């Protein structure tokens, strides 16, 4: 099965008046039927990228193809895409029905078809019975559904979603995440989904891209990005990460502030790297491990989050963050530790990710 490309970006660059570089050479392919997320902090260029696909911004350089057509000269109203806007952008003076029917009417579809399709779209997003309401009479979740129906009723090749769940409370957001995934699977429409919520992107996407400063940091499957981040930024932005400066002494060994550490390989002796390890991959024990890659540390802080306990550990070489499941502590391996207690930390070599990028001048990302 060969995936068909629907969105193809090549070297797309966009500079705003005033010299802000919003996109700095973005090359990306999104395939037919994919749920693709663009993830990044505010100002990383993800919304600009979406607006370029929608036709609301024109790139300064590079090419954009949608369904095989170069859309550089194609205005928004002639593109085979539809957008779900961040603040919904429903027409306040129109009823729900007229809002959803708008796109079909603009394409001069006969009234019978308009009625049938609007009915279908309303059923799809479960807002039957609201057709005579005005937007100001709807709740946030209902507005979101109307916005979705208004876009989907046109059966676009690509649906562009700009942080569509950003304004909703957590519970509703989780519920709509599931619904959006169900819809996307049911319809098979390609979704390009912009979000700054890393969990949302991990949960929903088939593939995703992490952006920073107008560039794609890494593109891939959610688990790829999480387990094998290629840059320190990705490692930090997606969840939390312990990043350890390392000086390679052998292909599978490096000197670090925590002492010598073994990795699964791929190092060039003499070079400097960052080694990353996720907090939940650290193994804690009261007794010494009698293995390589062990660090002795003291519990400095404990954060109780319900499902897990987060420990800030102080070792000779610096701080480490470790998460343990808050399970039955009578089972082996699920112990709890106290403030000031000494713990033995094992960093499994296969979980140490080698990040090969220059060290030192990395700007810190905002707290996720």
């Amino acid at each position: 099965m060969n995936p068909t490309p629907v969105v193809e970006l090549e070297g797309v660059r966009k500079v705003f008046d005033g010299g802000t570089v919003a996109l700095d050479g973005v090359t990306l392919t999104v395939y037919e039927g994919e749920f693709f997320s663009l993830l990044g902090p505010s100002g990383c260029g993800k919304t600009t990228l979406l607006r370029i696909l929608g036709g609301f911004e024109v790139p300064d350089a590079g090419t954009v193809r949608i369904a095989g057509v170069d859309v550089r000269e194609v205005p928004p109203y002639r593109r085979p895409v539809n957008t779900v806007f961040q603040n919904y952008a429903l027409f306040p003076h129109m009823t729900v029905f007229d809002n959803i029917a708008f796109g079909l009417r603009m394409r001069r579809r006969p009234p019978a078809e308009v009625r049938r399709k609007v009915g279908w779209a309303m059923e799809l997003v479960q807002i039957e019975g609201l057709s005579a309401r005005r937007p100001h009479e709807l709740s946030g979740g209902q507005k979101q559904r109307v916005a979705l129906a208004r876009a989907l009723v046109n059966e676009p090749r690509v649906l562009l979603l700009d942080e569509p769940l950003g304004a909703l409370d957590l519970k509703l957001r989780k519920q709509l995440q599931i619904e959006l995934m169900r819809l996307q699977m049911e319809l098979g429409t390609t979704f390009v989904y912009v979000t700054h919520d890393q969990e949302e992107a991990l949960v929903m996407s088939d593939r995703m891209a992490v952006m920073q400063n107008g560039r794609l940091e890494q593109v891939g499957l959610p688990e790829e990005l999480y387990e094998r981040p290629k840059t320190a930024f990705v490692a930090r932005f997606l969840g939390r990460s312990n990043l350890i400066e390392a000086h390679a002494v052998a292909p599978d060994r490096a000197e670090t502030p925590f002492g010598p550490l073994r990795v699964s390989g791929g190092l060039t002796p003499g070079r400097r790297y960052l080694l990353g390890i996720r907090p939940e991959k650290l193994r804690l024990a009261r007794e010494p491990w009698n293995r390589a890659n062990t660090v002795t540390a003291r519990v400095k802080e404990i954060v109780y989050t319900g499902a897990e306990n987060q420990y800030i550990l102080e070792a000779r070489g610096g701080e480490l963050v470790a998460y343990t499941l808050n399970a039955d502590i009578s089972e082996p391996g699920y112990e709890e530790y106290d403030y000031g207690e000494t713990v033995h930390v094992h960093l499994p070599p296969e979980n140490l990710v080698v990040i090969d990028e220059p060290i030192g001048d990395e700007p810190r990302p905002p707290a996720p």
Partner: protein
Amino acid sequence: MNRSATSRARRLLELLLTVGPGALWLLIFMLIPALLMLEASFLQRGPYGRLVGPFTLANYLRFFGLTPEGFDPLYLGILWRSAVFAAGVTAITLLLGYPLAFAIATSRRKETLLLLVVLPFWTNFLIRIYAWIVIFQRHGVVNAALGALGLGPLPLYPSWFAVYVATVYTYLPFLVLPVYTAVERIDWTLLEAAQDLGAGRVRGFLHAVLPQTLPGVVAGVLLVFVPALGTFVISDLLGAGRVILIGNVIQQQFGVVRDWAFGSAAAYVLMALVLLGLWGYARVAGEEGLDRLV
């Protein structure tokens, strides 16, 4: 109980302090004179313009042309002419003012441009109207320019044309300002949404932008139409007695003619018409329609 009594007294005091002065002002300078005029409209003109009884409907009958000598549509004709004039002025003002307000609100120098719109208010109204006489008179600027081209002179003053120009000029800011405010508040993502859904420039404007400016347009239209309907200074000065509007009729009754009774009746008919129009608009646009005006 005691507490609720003091809090009620407190609220009453707050109400008196906030609404009180304005209400008092309106009571003394509007409501009482209006009631006096209402009474006057049912009285008759006595010797030397004094108001004398008994109460009568004669003034209203006279206005509607129902005289003892038969039907005479003199004043109804003037009223109709005034309504046509006010509608014409409003239409021209709208055609000029809407694009102007749009251009200002979307310009980079909107503060400066807005200042220019408001600037004429800093000069006395009468002086501005006299200035139009200077411009339009037989040896004025326009005719001098036309003469240099070998044309004219045109009888620009006194004329209906001059009255129209000066009235539009006077009331243009009253339309530009509310429309400007509405344009400033436009949610442009609605235009993007319309384009996204297949609307081109024209339909995008009609469906997504124009509706957002309508409250401003309605406010502006009323602010122009109502005073244009009652204007008398502009028609008096630039019409020089040849242009008689309902405002002139009323003004003459209170001035030259000294028939306050008939003047009051005419003023009340005009007022009733304006209120009827507002009521009709509220019926059509719904209660929120009137709210949106403010």
